[in-house]
């Protein structure tokens, strides 16, 4: 099972084992990681599961869809080049060790 490392806004870290095929949003919400709201529940409709993908993982991820890219254009926290919506990131064995950080605010 791929492991994903989450960094909460306060800096606390959690490493979770996710089922392959599960979204990073789902994993965080199930475990109660702070810093994520996921109001729309994974519909790419709210941009409240915004995360920063830590190097070197950004280039290893499939690129964002048009909808995700447009949603990212106006997230509540600072948009950075490594901004993604965690509901659109799917855990897989190739992403074992992926690390994401949640921003200070989601809405």
């Amino acid at each position, binding site marked *: 099972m791929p492991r994903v490392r989450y960094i909460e806004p306060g800096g606390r870290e959690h490493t979770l084992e996710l089922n392959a095929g599960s979204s990073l949003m789902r994993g965080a919400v*199930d*475990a109660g990681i702070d810093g994520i709201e996921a109001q729309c529940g994974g519909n790419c409709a709210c941009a409240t599961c915004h995360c920063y993908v830590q190097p070197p993982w950004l280039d290893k991820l499939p690129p964002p869809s048009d909808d995700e890219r447009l949603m990212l254009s106006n997230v509540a926290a600072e948009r950075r080049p490594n901004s993604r919506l965690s509901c659109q990131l799917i855990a897989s064995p190739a992403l074992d060790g992926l690390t994401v950080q949640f921003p200070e*605010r989601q809405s």
Partner: protein
Amino acid sequence: MASQAPILIVGAGQAGVQIAESLRQEGYGDELLLIGNESHPPYQRPPLSKKWLLEPGAYSALALRGAEALQRRRITLRLDSEVSAIDRAASQLQLATGERLDYSKLALATGASARALPVPGAGLGEVLSLRSIGDSAAISAAIRRCAAAARPVVVIGGGFIGLEVAAAARKLGAAVTVLEGLPRLMSRVTAPIVSDAFERVHRAHGVELVFGAQVTQLLGAGDVEAVCTTDGREYPAGCVIVGIGVVPDDRLAMAAGLACDRGILVDDCARTSDASIVAAGDCTARRLADGRLLRLESVQNAVEQAKSAAAALLGRERPFVAAPWFWSDQYDIKLQMVGLSHGYDQVVTRGDLDKPAFSAFYFRAGRLIAVDSLSRVQDHMQSKRLLDHGLSPTPEQVADPQFELQSLLKDLKVATAGGA
């Protein structure tokens, strides 16, 4: 000092869970009990009228939070529990079992129930409404039976739930008739130009839409067989889905003497008329500065009011002032709405009306008050920020396709974003 009675939260939906979580995030360390009357742990409702109808899946995919998350935050969950009364004088809840629970503070997040169809025959079999996970599964199964038996699905109500169900039923291969009492779809919340776009899309997908249809009775022996309207028409039906709105569950609050007006009355900080009781989500009604009563039935409202409620329980003020937003999926159209369009005097559109992929910008006295976006994600996100920051483009700017809304946002600093 003797240990304090816990904070009790009645209702384990989106608002209830958020109140509990926010209390912990705000530093509340004592006991916290979340009381729900369903048998499932807290789950998301929006998918129930959308993709869940197409592919009912495992409960875990709908879970709002995992068991682990609740444990970590020391939130005790008590399911299958019906609260029968609030005894404010004794600071106690009475459960249907007769058990009494002390509270130090109380939060009400009792949600809403589907409005019942007030006509003869509404109690027949295969007459369904949508609120819970079980309702969604029952509707999905009924639609599949209709599709297999070539019997039509009749949807009563052309609002969000009715139209989402209609779209899902078409995808599942059933014939669908939507009976709407008013002259257009979603008329309480959108401008005619948006209603018209959805009317075209539903018709293009083969939905029969009937406007001005007043249902008088449902016919059948055991299961429903037809729906009758005032004009004497009879619509054959293999099942009937009733989507005519919801009724806030304010019964407990009202019986306890809290101020209610089609919902538990709260201020911007989610406080009720009792200083030790807060309320959040679908069960509430908010009195606005202009005296109007605002009822919002949305995830965002549940989450934001819940954050305010948690703060209020700890004696802090955290008003919910962000622009309300909402979304709906119908076929491949992503409808996203932000702001309150009530009282608009001008609508300007941007985008392609035929596709449809456009946004309707609502203005009042030249100021932007709301935006409905159909598959125009960027318009929605930009408008949300504009409204949250009290910024407004002019109607002329919106009408000019060359004008970039983003240009109005470029000076905003992230550090000051939202403020709430």
